[in-house]
Every structure is written in C-alpha cells, then in structure tokens.
C-alpha cells in the first residue's frame, strides 16, 4: 500500500488534551467496544469489592452488599440506556453514515472515568464515614467514633467522583459528536435529551433488577 501523506495534521493532533477529552479521534469501532466492555466489567468488579453501585447513567452510591452479577448488570444497563437513544438520534439528525459499532463502542469507552471512581471508592473509610453521616442525618444512634482520617478520605473520594462524572459526561458528548458527526445546537440538544431520558430509564431498570 502506498504511503499516505500527512494530510491530516490538524485532525491527527495527538496532544494530551486530545487523548484525555477526545480519544475517539483515534479509537472507535470494535477496538473501543472491547476496551469499553473490559472497563465496564473491571469497574463492576471493583464496585463489588467496595460495594459501590453505579445505579444510573451518572450515579455513584455507596450501597448494600449485592451479588456480583448486579454490579455487572448495572454497568451494562447504564451503557445501553444512553447508547441506544444516541444511536437513534444519530440516525435521525446526522447527515453522515452512522455506524452502530462506533456509537456503542465509543459510549462504552467513554465510561472509563468510572474505573477510577470505583478504585477511589474502595477504602473501607468511605463506608464508615458514609454510615456515620447517614446516622447523623437520620438522627439514629451513631455507631463508632468520628474519625478525621475517614473524613479526609471520604472528602477526597467525593471530590474525585465529582470530577470523574464531569469528565465522563464530556467524553460521552465527544463520543456522540465524533461517531455521529453532529455539531452545534443539534448535538447539544439531542445529547441533553438522551442523557436525561437515559438517567430515568437506567434508574427504573436497575430498580426493577434489584427489587
């Protein structure tokens, strides 16, 4: 095969910012799907170990112990709840050819900040301080003493979680924009509608699953 000129200097800009916020310029299709599914499964495994539930497209909660399949199911439901409406919006709104594998693959990969979230939520201190806070709010008897170290770990974890969710939403949007070739107001409106619908749908399905 002939060598290809560097015709795409601007589109192949491989800076760190590109890799962090728009890796889909370089990775999509089956590669993104396999990586994304691996990330969803590993996040679910860490979630199981730390009782961290991803019980909604954007949700992270310290929850009750549950069988491992519940954590895997949460990950898959969250991924599909958003990927399906985005794919249909892509088909309706985009002027380009939209490939299902690109939309589903990039949306799976865009969930990778949750892997960091699930690791940050692993320490037992998060659960201890979470239980302490819940007891304070519900005015029930507080079991165990207040621990500054637990509080510091909990606050650190919460800050990381908030940043990871913001980052994940940015990645989800970029994944949608690249895989469906949609820009501007059309992209923003359809993305917001999809994410609100997906949040409601995933919450409902996970509730049905865990009931």
């Amino acid at each position: 095969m002939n060598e290809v000129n560097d015709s795409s200097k601007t589109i192949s800009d491989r800076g760190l910012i590109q890799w962090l916020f728009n890796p889909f310029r370089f990775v999509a299709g089956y590669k993104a799907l396999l990586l994304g599914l691996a990330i969803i499964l590993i996040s679910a495994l860490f979630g199981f170990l730390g009782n961290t539930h991803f019980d909604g497209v954007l949700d992270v909660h310290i929850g009750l112990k549950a069988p491992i399949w519940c954590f895997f199911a949460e990950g898959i439901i969250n991924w599909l709840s958003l990927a399906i409406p985005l794919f249909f919006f892509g088909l309706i709104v985009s002027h380009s050819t939209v490939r299902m594998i690109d939309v589903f693959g990039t949306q799976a990969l865009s969930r990778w900040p949750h892997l960091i979230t699930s690791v940050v939520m692993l320490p037992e201190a998060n659960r201890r301080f979470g239980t302490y806070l819940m007891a304070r709010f519900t005015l029930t008897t507080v079991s165990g003493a207040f621990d500054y170290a637990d509080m510091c770990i909990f606050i650190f974890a919460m800050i990381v979680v908030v940043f990871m969710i913001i980052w994940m939403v940015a990645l989800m949007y970029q994944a949608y924009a690249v895989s469906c070739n949609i820009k501007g107001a059309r992209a923003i409106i359809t993305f917001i509608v999809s994410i609100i619908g997906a949040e409601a749908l995933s919450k409902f399905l996970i509730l049905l699953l865990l009931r």
Partner: protein
Amino acid sequence: MKLLPTMCPACNSQLKAKSLICQHCQTEIQGEYVLPILTRLSPEEQLFILDFIKSSGSLKEMARLLRLSYPTVRNRLDEIIERLQEADKSENTNGKEKP
C-alpha cells in the same frame, strides 16, 4: 513553490486564470480559464483527497495508515464533500448570473 491563489484578496471572489505560459518555448496563451474545483480546497484538504485515492477509496485503510479512528476520517471526508458541493453551487450560481 508558491501556492496557487484561488480567492481575490480584495473582494474574496473566485479568481480565474488569465494566461498560461509554456516554460519550454515561452508561448503564452491568454484567455479566461476557470480553475479546477479541487483547487478551491485548502492544500491540506487536497492532500487528504490524494491520500483517499492512494488508499483506493477505503476509509478503513486510510484510518489505519493515519492512525485515526474510522469516524474521524469519514467526518473529514464529509466536510470536504460539503465544501465541494458549496463550491459547485456557487459556481453554478455565478455562471447563471453572467451570460
């Protein structure tokens, strides 16, 4: 080598070639020649089209060689198609205006 100017720097209208010269015998031909539509694209876009042809029109192959994702390459091609369609449309409009 200098780049071929295609747009008027004063009013941003499409330029045309007025004379062509043979470098061998210095024969000069004067007239009003329309520049090929591909010259309306930026040099980067022209290179992209060349790459596309060299890749036998395979976006997958092009994505592999450029180490970009398939949708990124496809989106770039769609942008260029849109630009060519606009150029074609403006050329047709100008042609109808001038008898």
